[in-house]
């Protein structure tokens, strides 16, 4: 199969999932996630490749890609920050925290820093309502945030690409210390 931008490794990661479903189309969300991981965002070429692999039309792929918030149709920075803005987080200071991130990075909502390190987005509830304010950055949650913790987090990510502030398996309140 002739693919435009996706590698054979991505193709294998996608086709490996076919056996789990009676219909190739069910692999679409997975395929788009694999494509996005490989190429950074969902370009038209990447979506055409997914359509080829799943035997769909390009518009069927585009239709789904535009519905789900985790898919980027434009290039994004290395770290995508999703700042929760839903009511429980807002009640404990999410708006002020988001402003702090904007000031610290010098970007507005939806923008990417000039060094392509960070894209800032706002998002709705991430099931972290008792441990807000919080953000998700790539695969990790960061909770109970304060401006000082955000500064350390952004410094960590810039310097080392990761931070030990990332949340571990979740339990609140943590009365036993377990």
């Amino acid at each position, binding site marked *: 199969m002739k693919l435009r931008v996706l590698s054979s490794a991505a193709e294998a990661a996608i086709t490996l999932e076919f056996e789990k479903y009676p219909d190739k189309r069910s692999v679409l*969300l997975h395929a788009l996630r694999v494509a996005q991981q490989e190429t950074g965002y969902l370009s038209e070429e990447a979506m055409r490749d997914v359509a080829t692999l799943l035997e769909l039309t390009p518009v069927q792929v585009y239709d789904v890609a535009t519905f789900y918030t985790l898919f980027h149709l434009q290039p994004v920075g290395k770290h995508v920050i999703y700042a929760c803005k839903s009511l429980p987080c807002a*009640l404990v200071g999410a708006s002020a925290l988001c402003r702090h991130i904007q000031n610290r990075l010098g970007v507005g909502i939806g923008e990417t820093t000039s060094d392509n390190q960070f894209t800032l987005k706002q998002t709705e509830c991430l099931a972290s309502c008792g441990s807000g304010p919080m953000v998700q950055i790539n695969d990790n949650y960061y909770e109970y945030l304060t401006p000082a913790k955000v500064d350390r987090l952004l410094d960590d990510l810039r310097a080392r690409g990761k931070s030990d502030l990332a949340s571990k398996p979740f339990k609140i309140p943590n009365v036993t210390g377990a």
Partner: protein
Amino acid sequence: MVSYEKILTKNMDTPGYMGTLPEYRATGGYTAFEKALKMPPAEIIDIVKKSGLRGRGGAGFPTGVKWSFIPKTHVGQRYLCCNADESEPGTFKDRQLIERDPHQMLEGIGIASYAIGASVAYIYIRGEFDLGAKIIESAIQEAYQAKFFGKNLLGSGFNLEVILHRGAGAYICGEETALLESIEGKRGKPRTKPPFPAVHGLYQAPTVVNNVETLANVPYIINRGAEWYASIGTPKSPGTRIFSVSGHVKRPGNYEVPLGITLREMIYTCAGGIRNDKALKAIIPGGASAAFLTPAHLDTPMDFEAIAQIGSMLGSGGVTVMDEETCMVQAATNLLEFFYHESCGKCTPCREGSSWILQVLHRIERGTGRASDLDLLETLCRRIEGVTVCAFGDAEVAPVLSTLKHFKEEYVAHIEGRGCPFQPNVELVMAH
């Protein structure tokens, strides 16, 4: 503080317990599945019916009854889907069950699949739960290795494949038919019902969709019996429930208690009362889709019927608490921003209505509201509720109608005073 017996959150209270298969086995894990595989499926459905277990995702439908809707004469594939798309603002219980004790859910999936005759079960987990997905994936592998999943389980002849399916960011996929559409690789748009999933579900085959917490209860019901389960909680809302408490309380968190304790006990005893000892102004008792309540409702029991009787719902069990300094217009506006963003766009009243309501709320909050706006909001809401394919339409009007009912004077103050009368120490709606 009265202490209640925990069921689903008991193991994780043991220091160091991380929910691996050997740890779960040591607490009696999978003995219910072993027992169930020796029983006729109809008997399991009967036990779950008698236990009175009701869905923990939001609607509160009796679980055993839902299972019994699978047509008995159907030949061919049936499916079980576990709804792990927890996205209702205020709710974070399934995340804890998944990350700290995932085998309870998996064992429940095994028993439920056997009971309804499903040889394939999909776990639909929201795309943002990356850690949860890794933990479930590893727990599934453990269960396959221990031969709890796979072929001819424990010599019963029953086969079961359990497959994790990750979403990609869309609140509506927690609605059970939207969830099925999403597994099929489509936009998550709810289907018109009937037909219900039990008849035409995933790939048009008979399907049951159950929430994580619902399924996690099943092994305990099989092991300890329907009478034991029914003796906890209230007669019509039996069992425990994990309430997620957030907002202006001293100790936010997940609290597993018998259904029927009062809102007062939940907020003032479990969660420690209001932060900085301020006064309570408003409570959302069951996630963002539930109507606001006031301190006058504090002595209401937290069971499905009692909360419905006072005009709200127990929903997903997400209790969000707001103190005296919170602006109710801002709180409603924040929630309408959520509903506007998450409306799937299928039904015109919901799609267009959420946008119109939000425009009116924004202008009231910003000081350009009109005296006629309160009637306009009411009219808009009444033309959305009850006329959409799924419950989202009713959900999006609940915060507006209930704040108009209980806090009308705040709306009036915004309109007459040409702006928000509250000191904005906490800003709930960001101006862009």
